[in-house]
């Protein structure tokens, strides 16, 4: 059902929604800012320039908010949206910053050049940017954060976490995950959170350091591999196995969790929770040929 084609310069429109409907928002350039409220309705406030329109469409399963170029070159529209916290969000753009606060449903975000910042989310939460940092806070479920050229971070979240970037760092802070995977090619990886019995924790970078926070009571079988890097630990470990090359293993407690630490040419460091990270070369040389 087509509800509104706003040709006016400013729109402020509210449409009723029902549980089970999801919200899809797509724009070309500008910002998508979503916050939540207790009403079963979606409010859209936008101030498009003269070259753009905002379309709001509603079907049985989805409410769609789209910006369209009306004439001339690229347009920029900032969308301020208020939605029920339970509503699943699917937000996309090209030159678009995305901010979400207070959501309690699944969230998917894709942008090309733009920052992504999400607070909340439950279920499948997937955030991607090519050229922009991605940060997720206070989410639970299956959490995926992905960038190409910037840092990614997950804070105060729980569930199964996958964090990946090519040229940036991965910071996982206060993460309570039973399955955690963090990878980068040219960046550091930091994990600060509990290591749960039976959990799987995999950290892999080519040209970066890995800092893993390990509580004293942790039960983990730890496998360390590097080609041209180093290993440091702020507490003593007893190796149970060493293999050709810089590869070795050790066990903490019962060894219940599986921890894999791989850095081709960086330093792998174990620290106690809360311990300051060791001095690190902040001037990460990208030309590390």
């Amino acid at each position, binding site marked *: 059902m087509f509800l509104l084609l706003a040709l006016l310069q400013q729109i402020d429109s509210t449409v009723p929604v029902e549980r089970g409907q999801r919200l899809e928002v797509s724009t070309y350039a500008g910002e998508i800012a979503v916050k939540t409220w207790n009403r079963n309705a979606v409010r859209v406030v936008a101030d498009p320039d003269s070259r753009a329109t905002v379309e709001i469409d509603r079907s049985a399963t989805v409410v769609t908010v789209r910006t369209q170029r009306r004439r001339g070159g690229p347009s920029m529209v900032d969308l301020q949206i208020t939605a029920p916290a339970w509503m699943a969000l699917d937000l996309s753009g090209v030159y678009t910053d995305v901010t979400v606060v207070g959501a309690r449903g699944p969230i998917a975000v894709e942008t090309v050049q733009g920052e992504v910042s999400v607070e909340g989310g439950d279920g499948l939460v997937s955030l991607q940017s*090519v050229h922009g940092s991605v940060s997720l806070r206070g989410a639970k479920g299956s959490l995926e954060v992905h960038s190409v050229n910037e840092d990614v971070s997950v804070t105060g979240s729980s569930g199964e976490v996958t964090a990946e970037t*090519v040229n940036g760092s991965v910071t996982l802070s206060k993460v309570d995950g039973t399955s955690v995977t963090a990878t980068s090619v*040219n960046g550091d990886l930091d994990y600060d959170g509990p290591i749960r019995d039976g959990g799987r924790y995999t950290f*892999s970078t*080519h040209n970066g350091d890995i800092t893993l926070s390990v509580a004293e009571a942790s039960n983990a079988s730890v*496998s360390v591999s590097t*080609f041209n890097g180093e290993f440091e630990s702020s507490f003593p470990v007893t190796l149970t196995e060493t293999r*050709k*090359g810089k590869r070795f293993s050790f066990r903490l407690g019962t060894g219940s969790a599986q921890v894999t630490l791989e850095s081709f040419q960086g330093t792998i460091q174990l620290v106690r929770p809360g311990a300051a990270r060791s001095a690190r070369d902040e001037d990460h040389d990208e030309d590390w040929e």
Partner: protein
Amino acid sequence: MSDQWSDRLSEYLDGDLTEAEHLAMEAHVEGCRECAETLAGLRRTVMRARSLEDRPPAHDLWSGIAERIGTPARIAAAPRRRRIAFSVPQLLAAGIALAVLSGGSVWLLQPSPLTIARPLVEVPGDAPVTQVGVGTVKGYDAAVDDLERVLAQGRGKLDSATVRILEQNLAIIDRALAQARQAVAADSANLYLNSHLAETMRRKIDLLRQAATLVSAAS
């Protein structure tokens, strides 16, 4: 790690062992780091295969790549039971092949269940790891070539800053690939180096695929 145990890891993962065998395997894996590591690698490979997106890519973009890889462009969904039959060197081969599949041919694998009835790469069961590691995966280079061509042809459709970022990051991955290949050449039996090379190959395919998707979306 003995062949007696390693050869049965995939059966263990599949739940095909008897209860007694299962318990015996569990006890063995508990004390054998190499088997535990291999088992973890198998699990990661299967998880990666399972996590492949079921969203079909634009057919016109990928059909040529599928042809290059030497596989039919589409396999009808078959509710067959997941079956994995890897030897240890084949595990590495499968990891690299999945890099190709996850990048260019996702439709080849159904979301679930996964069926890999035979090795995806032609590797003799007792082949040394070197035959797997250093770029012998059928179709990988061709798939990369095809995707790079898509990016080259479509770069005019993308913002110059986006193209610059993509190319910078591809260069970063290429440097990592060169270093990983060199390392594997120097220590061909190193499981870590081989899996790291496979993972880096996957990263390149993933990024190229992402670039191709951007080109497609901008068209």
